[in-house]
């Protein structure tokens, strides 16, 4: 589903973001990417999203080779990916419902599908009663649920979460992780870059550990690697 092969990223200022990283993620997997700040997690996520281009190597997402992808094809690559950020990135002037419907409008979905799908994902993330609320009327957890709902409303095969619990208290963080697991159970491939040691240890999923831009550990049913 996601094939990252011998990928390196050297920034224009000469600093190395990622060095010779190879990761293969199968359809339906749940993978944690962990590592300290500056280990290259965000660089990796940005390259998967094609916000950054690798200096070397190639990345294939759901059969699409992103290496030489034309600019006007990038939106169609991103439609394969649901993306969740640490800072939620909701539109403050739109309600919860509108924020989610927005993701469907953008891909020119039919209004009928919007009216059907948005309430469905809202109840999946447990926000059916908050449809008309604005983001600033929601708690952090609720905002992240909204962001999650937006990420999955178009039913993408892959969900990428970059520090999804970074701004949340431990209980709420756990709820969000459970929600991610639930989404994974429904068949979506989930990749989570995180710092949340306790959660990684508890969930016993595949854990890829990055250090200084290299993969130093890649284990099934792993925990947080103590050496980093």
């Amino acid at each position, binding site marked *: 589903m996601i094939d990252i092969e011998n990928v390196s990223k050297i920034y224009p200022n000469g600093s190395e973001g990622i060095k010779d990283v190879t990761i293969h993620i199968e359809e339906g997997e749940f993978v944690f990417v962990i590592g300290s700040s500056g280990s290259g997690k965000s660089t990796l996520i940005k390259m998967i999203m094609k916000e950054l281009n690798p200096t070397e190597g190639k990345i294939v997402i759901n059969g699409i080779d992103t290496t030489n992808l034309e600019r*006007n094809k990038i*939106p169609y690559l*991103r*439609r394969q990916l649901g993306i969740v950020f640490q800072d939620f*990135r909701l539109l403050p002037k739109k309600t919860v419902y509108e924020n989610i419907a*927005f993701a469907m*409008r*953008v*891909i020119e979905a*039919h209004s009928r599908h919007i009216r059907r799908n948005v309430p469905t994902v809202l109840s999946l993330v447990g926000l059916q009663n908050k449809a008309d609320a604005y983001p600033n009327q929601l708690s952090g957890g609720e905002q992240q649920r909204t962001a999650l709902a937006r990420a999955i409303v178009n039913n993408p095969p892959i969900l990428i979460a970059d520090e999804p619990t970074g701004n949340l208290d431990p209980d709420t963080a756990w709820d969000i992780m459970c929600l991610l697991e639930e989404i994974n159970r429904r068949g979506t491939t989930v990749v989570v870059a995180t710092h949340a040691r306790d959660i990684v240890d508890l969930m016993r999923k595949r854990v890829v550990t990055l250090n200084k831009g290299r993969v130093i550990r890649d284990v099934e049913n792993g925990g947080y690697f103590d050496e980093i």
Partner: protein
Amino acid sequence: MKFSSVKYYIHEGFTGLFKNSLMTVASIATVAACIFIVAVSCCLLANMRSMMTQIEKNIGISVFLEDKLSPESITMISEQMKRIPHVSSVTYISPDDALEELKKEWNADEVLSGFDNNNNPLSSSFEISIDNIEYQKDVISEIKQIDGVRNIRNAQNETDILLKLNKVISIVGFLSMLILAAISVVIITNTIKISVYTRKTEINIMKYVGATDWFIRWPFIVEGVLIGIIGALVPLIISWPLYDKCISLIYVHLPFIGNIAHFLSGYTIFSVLIPLCILAGILLGVIGSVTSIHKHLNV
């Protein structure tokens, strides 16, 4: 492009106007101020040009004929002169007419009382007007070649001054319009840039959820067009009655101006200015929004 998307663009364009009301007002005010200045300058320039042409038309050429020409040859000369390019009218003045005119002008019947139709010292003449005084010299040299023409009189000094004035007005007018237009473009694109900048998060999110560049641009273009249209219409609607009022005030308080030349009517100016300015407003809006979004699309 799907119909539902078109509906969405228009809807978003309008909501964009209202949700960012402060920036909208700023943008519209900027466009309106620029268009107002351009409209006022246009009114001034158009009137100066039109007055110049009116004055030019009054500067005729008098062509005096040799004495004792038969009516046939006079008609022939008249026909020949009408055929010269840029001659717009040829009026025959018989010696009798000329005498009558002179008597009226001098208001001194006594001095001229000895003269009547039988001993009239004046000769037949033609009053010629031309459509553009730049060609006066060419026309005169053509007339000189016609048989039966004794003398030609024209106001050379006035013509030269008018020609120079005309040139100065054209150059100054053209330059000032150019500078005004350039300043307007810079100010308007900057205002729209700020308006787009305040919404860069929105553009960013659209990119992440897989929106194409055009899908992001269209609502901004709709918004730009709306700002352009409103920004153009407001000053035009204000300046039309203002212009008419100014003209009638000038005619009342400075009546001598009306004797020299007439102002263009509000309708004449604004029937051209309104569509032009709306077009300019739309163009400015579109160019402003497209160039300002461009930077934010590279994510």
